[in-house]
């Protein structure tokens, strides 16, 4: 049977079941020992634990009832004894413990027969004990010992929640220290700390003294602090103060407006300065921040439009032709313009120089690669172009490889089994073809972003890259799976079993090579994207 148990989960479950059953058995055994030794309380607890694990076991219920009852009688005797010694606190707590036990057992379906005398002892002892504790609590309240008073009234409340005026005094003992701490904070000018103390009380008892009014007063003072700071243009501190009030009550007076002002006014002012000094892009971003935060704040929307207009950055793209590949240069330029537009830079406006001024194309850059500053200025004056993105190509290489074909000798192997189970192999010499081809393209491009007003080279870099694709494959007209390569040695063709896997791989290879046009597209996209990212990240105001 053991041999058949191979599932680890089943083994684990079985062990768990045995462990549980064994634990209950051990508990019962120990409980029996306790019972024999007259330790009925301990025995009852163990039976109770066992019953929790095996709630349907009738003998456990009986044992719990038997021991629980005997232990209860012992507790009755102990309670009586403490009552007679006039140790009322002990009487009260013995009664409570006994009752808790009874209730606990009751939840497991085991009822213990109670002694009415217990209620009498408890009732009497409770009166004595609580009266004494109540008076102590009152005295402590009078002496403003709130912590100790709270402890006492909490204890009374746990024993008898309706005892005299305990609820009120417990509230007083709990809340008065907070209330006073609030007063002290208020006096020290820590209005929000005061607010929080009173709020804490208010959350628990809405009618405690004048906490609601005081909360308003604390907010009012903090609001005033914030307003004064705002007037003195201490925007950060004002934002902190007004933010405190706003968090506590967003509808407090006009705190929302003032808090918005405290947060946004310094940004607004800085944006105005930036706009004035031509740092339009920075101003645009700041106005955007304000609009995002406040939606409407002063003239932010109009000024942002103004900043955007001013921050626009028209760039004319111009590239030198590539010898023998004029169309390719044009292709690269167009791809670059596409990449620049894809950046979605709201400031960047891209133009093709030939579209703006076709005459200028031939004369903007001399043979030494130097730009004509007069023409640059003209571009700015007549077309508003702020910079020319000039591209210069080098090492352009395009190579379209021929498809190489080689006829090869191989063997087609046929394996058969006869009726006797014997295996027979037939190798038939055959011909198959192997092909190879490679396409390659490479380019190095240097770019310069040149200011039309100053002729300054604002940004420059060179990127080089290449793309190639090559194919190698084999074709065979027969059964490809049975095809083996062959080696020629000393005038004899032999089957090459070791080369089988390589040949099978070649037979499954791709037979279509990527065209040069495809490779060019990938290469141009790669290179233009790098340049576009550079231009996008370029901030003319830095």
């Amino acid at each position, binding site marked *: 049977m*053991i*041999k058949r*148990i191979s599932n680890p989960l089943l*083994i684990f479950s079985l*062990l768990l079941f*045995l*462990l549980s*059953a*064994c634990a209950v*058995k*051990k508990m019962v*055994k120990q409980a029996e020992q306790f019972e*024999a*030794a*007259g330790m009925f309380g301990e025995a009852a607890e163990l039976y109770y634990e066992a019953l929790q694990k095996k709630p349907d076991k009738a003998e456990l219920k009986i044992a719990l009832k038997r021991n629980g009852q005997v232990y209860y009688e012992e507790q009755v005797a102990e309670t*009586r004894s403490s*009552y*007679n*010694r*006039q140790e009322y606190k002990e009487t009260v707590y013995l009664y409570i413990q006994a009752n808790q036990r009874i209730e606990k057992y009751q939840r497991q379906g085991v009822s213990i027969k109670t002694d009415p*005398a217990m209620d*009498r*002892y408890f009732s*009497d002892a409770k009166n004595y004990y609580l009266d004494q504790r*109540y*008076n*102590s*609590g*009152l*005295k*402590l*309240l*009078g002496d403003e010992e709130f912590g100790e008073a709270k402890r006492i009234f909490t204890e009374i409340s746990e024993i008898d929640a309706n005892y005299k005026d305990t609820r009120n005094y417990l509230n007083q003992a709990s809340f008065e220290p907070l209330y006073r701490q609030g*007063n002290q904070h*208020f*006096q020290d000018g820590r209005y929000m700390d005061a607010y929080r103390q009173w709020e804490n009380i208010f959350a628990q008892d809405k009618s405690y003294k004048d906490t609601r009014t*005081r909360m308003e*007063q604390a907010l*009012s*003072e903090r609001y*005033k602090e914030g*307003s*004064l700071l705002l*007037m*003195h243009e201490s925007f950060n501190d004002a934002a902190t103060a007004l933010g405190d009030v706003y968090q506590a009550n967003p509808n407090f007076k006009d705190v929302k407006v003032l808090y918005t002002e405290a947060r946004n006014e310094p940004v607004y002012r800085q944006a105005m300065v930036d706009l004035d000094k031509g740092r339009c892009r920075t101003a645009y971003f700041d106005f955007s921040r304000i609009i995002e935060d406040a939606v409407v704040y002063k003239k932010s929307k109009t000024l942002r439009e103004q900043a955007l207009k001013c921050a626009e950055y028209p760039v004319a793209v111009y590239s030198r032709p590539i010898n023998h590949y004029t169309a390719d240069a044009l292709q690269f330029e167009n791809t670059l313009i596409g990449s620049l537009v894809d950046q979605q830079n709201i400031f960047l406006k891209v133009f093709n120089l030939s579209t703006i001024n076709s005459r200028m194309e031939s004369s903007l850059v001399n043979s030494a690669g130097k730009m004509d500053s007069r023409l640059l200025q003209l571009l700015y004056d007549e077309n508003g172009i702020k910079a020319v993105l000039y591209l210069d190509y080098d090492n352009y290489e395009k190579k379209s490889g021929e498809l190489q074909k080689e006829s090869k000798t191989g063997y087609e192997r046929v394996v058969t089994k006869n009726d006797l189970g014997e295996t027979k192999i037939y190798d038939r010499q055959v011909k198959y073809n192997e092909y190879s081809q490679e396409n390659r393209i490479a380019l190095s491009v240097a770019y310069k972003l040149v200011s039309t007003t100053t002729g300054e080279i604002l940004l420059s870099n060179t990127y080089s890259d290449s793309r190639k694709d090559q194919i190698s494959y084999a074709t065979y007209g027969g059964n490809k799976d049975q095809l083996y390569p062959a080696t020629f040695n000393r005038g004899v063709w032999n089957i090459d079993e070791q080369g089988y896997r390589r040949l099978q791989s070649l037979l499954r290879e791709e037979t279509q090579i990527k065209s040069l046009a495809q490779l060019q597209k990938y290469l141009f996209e790669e290179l233009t994207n790098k340049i576009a990212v550079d231009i996008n990240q370029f901030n003319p105001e830095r």
Partner: protein
Amino acid sequence: MKHFIFLFLMIFLISCSSSRKLSYKQQMEGAPAWVKQSPNASAYYHGVGMASKVMSPTDYRELARQNALSELASAISVNISSSSVLNQFEFDDNFSEYFRDNIKLSTEQFLEGYELVESWENEQQYWVYYQLSKSKFEAIKQARIDKAVNVSKADFEKARDFEKVANFQESMRFYIKALEGIKDFLADDITTEVDGTKQSYTSLLIAEMLKMPGNLEIVMQGEKPRYTRGLGHENENLVLKVLYKGQEAVKGVNVNAEFSYAPGKSVQQSSDANGLIRVRLENIDTRKKEEYVKARANIDKLIRESTNDPVIRRLVESITFPEYVFPVEIVSPKWYVETVEKNLGTSLSSKIMERTFRTLLASDGFELVKSKDAADYILLCESDTQNGNEVNGKYIARLDAQIRLMNQQSQVVYTKPVSDISGLGSSFQAAGEDAFQSLESKIRISIYPAMYKSLFK
């Protein structure tokens, strides 16, 4: 792995198996009849006791003997006589039970004349059987009662003598001693000759003792006292006098005094040679016009000194002494409030500070008067605002104030300068009014409570 599991299961099965036990019937084989059933011979009280040899291997014989004697004592029924102590005091069920338990315990302690009948044991248990002749028990008990009454009567006479000379303390002490003398027979009807006639001794003793508290009286010396609310009463005393039968001053009586205006606080004092008690007053901080001091004799100490017996203590502690209530008149100080409140140099038409102080004082139960001469305290406040800045149509005003409190003798008892309170508004005047609102908050939250505390807490 599979072998391991098999081994594991075997260990479980072995460890979970239980051992065999001897049945109860087998254990009790050969036990005599008195073990199986309680003996029943009417001329005797019987006691059978058992102890486990396993549980008490060294002292099981003594334990069994104690159990047997306890059962024997239980068999002696406790009849509480109609003239017993229990029927004269008004006790609840808890005490009645306690009383019975103690009589049983006392019976057990003084058990004499019992004899061992037989013992039996097996491997686990030891059993013993005692008996006591009922007639023998009664004779022994009567001898003990006679002896106890003789001693008690001597103390009873002393108690009477001290009572005649109004010595409450000593009289009470000897009544307690007399009661203690017969403590083992409190459930019995003891008849003996007192004052030349045969009468129930316990009833007489208790009746005379219970008369004592009613004769003790606490009176106040002089007229209804009048106190002014506030601090400064720490050295003042309320003088009470303890009298016996309304005439004789009683010394040494402990009196417990409580104050209606200081819940939970109490003072204990003993009467001096002239029966006087000087109760030191607590701080009087109350809005009421009349409060009271409650006084009651407390003989706990006397009881502790007079007896160690818990039953007698509980009996005597249950004697209630009358409570005397002495009203005291509380006079609240009269206040005069005068404020000068200006906003930018112009007097306010509605005085904020004055209104605030008046509201707070009235809510604390103080009387406000219109004349300085009639006042116990004179509160003077001066305040004015000044222009601050103006920014974007918002105006700031600054407020300074001076608050001074003087007593009748013009002595300054509290002062508070308030400065640099800012107000905001759409004009300097509105800003000044706003600053006054802030001042009002400060008065409510910090200034007034501090001033109040300095005088009354």
